[in-house]
C-alpha cells in the first residue's frame, strides 16, 4: 500500500473546479508566501529553498538552491521559467499551468525576489493554448493585486513578468535551446561550456532557468519552512513530487506523492493511484522517467521513487513520467515509436544525433513492419554505441546536448530485455502482434 500521509503541496487546490481563479487562490492562502517572503531578506528566502533541498523538477534534478547560489557572486539579469513540457508521457506541468497558474506566478515572484531579479519570462509550450490563457490571466491578476509591477505589496522590490509562447519543438525544453527560442531564433542548444546559463544566458547575461513544478513548490516552502519540506521524502529526494502515470494502467493521471516512501509498485497498483494494470495483465516493462530513460523490468517494481535510488539501478527518474507496458505490448513497436520521435525532434546540429536517430529509426521500422534481417539486431546495438559509446548510464556525451545520448535508451533496453521479441519479428517477417 502506498504511503499517502504527506500533505499535497502543489496540487492542494485541484478538488476545486475554479482552482485557476484569483478568487479561489486568495481564499486558499494565495500570496501569503510572497507576503511572508517580502518580510525576509532575499538571502534568507534563498536559504529556506536551500534547506528544503528541492531538486529541480524538470528532468535533470539539479538542486534548485545550489543552482541559485552559483550565481550569488554576480547580479542576475533574468529568471526564465521552463514551461515547455514535451518529454513524451510527461503531463504534470500542463496540469499546473492550467489548473493552478497563480501558484506558479507566486512561486516565480518569490524566486525572483530571492534572486533579486526584476525581469522574468515564463516560457510556455505553444500547444498549451489554454495554459497560456490561464497563466496570462494570472499575471494580469497579479499586477492588479499589486503582486507584480513597481514596489510590490509596498516593498522595495519591483518586477515584471512576461508570458512567452513556444511554437512546437521538443528541444526547446533544453534550457539553452529555450533561451535561443526566447531570443527569437531556432531552438539550437548552445555549445558547453559555459555549462550553465548562469554564466551566459539570455542575451549573454547571467540567467536562471527553473521548471514550472519547481517554482510551484516555493509558496509552500516559504509558508512552512524549508525544514518541513526536507522532512518529507528521503535521502536526497525531499518533499513530494508529481508523477505522471500513463500507459496500460486503469487510472492514468498525475499523482502527488512523497518521494522515496513509495515504490513503482505502489504508484501503479494502489487503488488511490494507478489502480493496477488494465485487465490484470502482467507488467512487461516500465519506463521510469520519460522516454530518454532506460527501461526497467517488473523485478524492479519495488524500487523506491527516489532520484538516487533509480539512478543506482541504471536509469533516471527524469521528468517524473512513468509508462507501463504490459504483456500485450509490442516492445519493438514501442521502441521504434520512441526512436521516430527522437529522429523527428533532433535539431540537426550534431551528426551522431541527426544521422544516428534516422538510421536506428529505419532499422527499427523494417524489423517492426517486415523486411528486418537478423543482423539488424546487432547493427542496432552498434548504432546505439556510436551515439553513446559504451552504452552506459548516464551516457557518454557525444553531442552538444543530452537529446542525442538519450536516443539509444529505449532500443538498447528493448534488445537487452526482449531480444527474443526482435528475433521473432525477423523470423515472422514483421510484427506478430499485427
Amino acid at each position: 500500500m502506498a504511503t499517502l500521509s504527506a500533505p499535497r503541496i502543489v496540487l492542494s487546490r485541484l478538488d476545486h473546479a475554479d482552482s485557476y481563479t484569483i478568487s479561489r487562490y486568495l481564499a486558499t492562502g494565495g500570496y501569503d508566501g510572497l507576503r511572508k517572503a517580502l518580510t525576509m531578506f532575499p538571502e534568507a528566502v534563498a536559504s529556506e529553498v536551500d534547506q528544503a533541498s528541492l531538486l529541480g523538477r524538470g528532468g535533470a534534478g539539479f538542486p534548485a538552491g545550489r543552482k541559485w547560489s552559483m550565481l550569488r557572486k554576480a547580479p542576475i539579469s533574468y529568471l526564465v521559467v521552463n514551461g515547455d513540457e514535451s518529454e513524451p508521457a510527461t503531463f504534470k506541468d500542463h496540469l499546473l499551468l492550467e489548473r493552478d497558474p497563480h501558484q506558479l506566478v507566486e512561486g516565480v515572484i518569490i524566486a525572483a525576489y530571492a534572486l533579486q531579479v526584476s525581469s522574468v519570462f515564463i516560457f510556455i509550450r505553444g500547444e498549451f493554448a489554454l495554459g497560456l490563457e490561464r497563466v496570462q490571466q494570472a499575471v494580469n491578476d497579479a499586477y492588479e493585486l499589486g503582486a507584480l509591477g513597481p514596489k510590490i505589496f509596498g516593498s522595495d522590490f519591483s518586477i515584471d513578468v512576461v508570458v512567452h509562447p513556444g511554437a512546437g519543438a521538443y528541444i526547446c525544453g533544453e534550457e539553452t535551446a529555450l533561451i535561443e527560442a526566447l531570443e527569437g531564433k531556432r531552438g539550437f542548444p548552445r555549445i558547453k561550456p559555459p555549462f550553465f546559463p548562469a554564466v551566459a544566458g539570455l542575451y549573454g547575461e547571467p540567467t536562471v532557468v527553473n521548471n514550472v513544478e519547481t517554482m510551484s513548490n516555493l509558496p509552500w516552502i516559504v509558508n512552512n519552512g524549508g525544514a518541513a519540506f526536507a522532512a518529507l521524502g528521503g535521502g536526497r529526494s525531499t518533499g513530494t513530487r508529481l508523477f505522471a502515470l500513463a500507459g496500460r494502467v486503469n487510472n492514468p493521471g498525475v499523482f502527488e506523492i512523497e518521494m522515496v516512501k513509495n515504490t513503482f509498485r505502489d504508484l501503479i497498483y494502489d487503488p488511490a493511484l494507478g489502480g493496477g494494470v488494465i485487465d490484470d495483465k502482467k507488467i512487461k516493462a516500465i519506463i521510469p522517467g520519460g522516454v530518454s530513460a532506460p527501461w526497467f523490468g517488473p523485478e524492479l517494481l519495488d524500487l523506491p521513487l527516489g532520484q538516487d535510488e533509480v539512478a543506482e539501478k541504471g536509469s533516471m527518474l527524469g521528468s517524473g513520467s512513468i509508462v507501463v507496458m504490459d504483456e500485450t505490448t509490442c516492445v519493438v513497436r514501442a521502441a521504434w515509436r520512441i526512436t521516430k520521435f527522437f529522429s523527428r525532434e533532433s535539431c540537426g546540429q550534431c551528426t551522431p544525433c541527426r544521422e544516428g536517430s534516422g538510421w536506428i529509426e529505419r532499422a527499427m521500422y523494417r524489423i517492426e513492419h517486415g523486411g528486418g534481417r537478423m543482423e539488424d539486431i546487432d547493427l542496432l546495438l552498434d548504432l546505439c554505441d556510436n551515439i553513446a559509446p559504451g552504452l552506459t548510464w548516464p551516457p557518454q556525451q557525444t553531442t552538444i546536448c543530452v537529446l542525442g545520448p538519450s536516443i539509444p535508451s529505449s532500443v538498447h533496453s528493448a534488445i537487452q530485455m526482449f531480444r527474443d521479441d526482435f528475433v521473432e519479428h525477423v523470423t515472422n517477417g514483421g510484427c506478430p502482434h499485427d
Partner: protein
Amino acid sequence: MSHFRVDIRQRAEEVLALYPRPRSAMLPLLHLAQEQDGYVSDEGIAEVAELTATTPADVRGTALFYDMFHLEPVGRYVVGICTNIACLLAGGDELLEHASATLGCPVGATSSDGLFTLEETECLADCDFAPCVQVNHRYVRTTTPDAFDAVVAELRAGTLDHDVPQHGTLIRVRRAGGLHAARSDVAAERATASTARAARTPETK
C-alpha cells in the same frame, strides 16, 4: 503599408514592447501572423521581419524550425492526433487511421473542402486522455473513434466554434498593459539592496 489588420498590428506592437530586443518577439509575432492569415504567409513573414528588424529569409528559416507554424495554407481546423508512447499503447495509430477515413484525407494533408488538415503529432502532454486529440490546439478529449466522429460532425456544423476558435494559439491571450517596473527605478533599487546586503553580511564578499 501594413499587411496586418489594425488590431493584429496593435497587438504585435504591444508584444514587441515587452522585450529588450525586438527579435525576441519572433515566435509570438509569427503566431499572430498565423492567426490572421490561417498560415504564415509571405506577406506575414515580411511584416514580422520588419517588426523584428530581421530579414524575411531569417524569419522563414526560424519559422520552419517550429512545428506549429504552417508555411502553406491549411484547413480551418487543424486536427492533431498523437501516436507517441502513451497514445500508442492506447490505440493512437488506429485512431489516426480512423480519422483519416472520417476526414477523407491522408495524414499531413487537407480535406478537399478545405475544412480539415490532419496531422500526426508528438506527445501533447495530456496522456490521461489517450489517444490525445487536439483541434486548433484545443484538447477535445475524444479517445474513441465514435467520439471523434461526433466532434467532427459538430465542427462541420459550426457548433464548436466557441471551444475551438480559429487558428492562433494566442487568440484569447491578452496582456493587460505593458511593462510596469521602469529600468532606472529597478537599477536604483538593486543598488540600494546590494549596499544593504553588503552591510549585513560583511564576511561574504
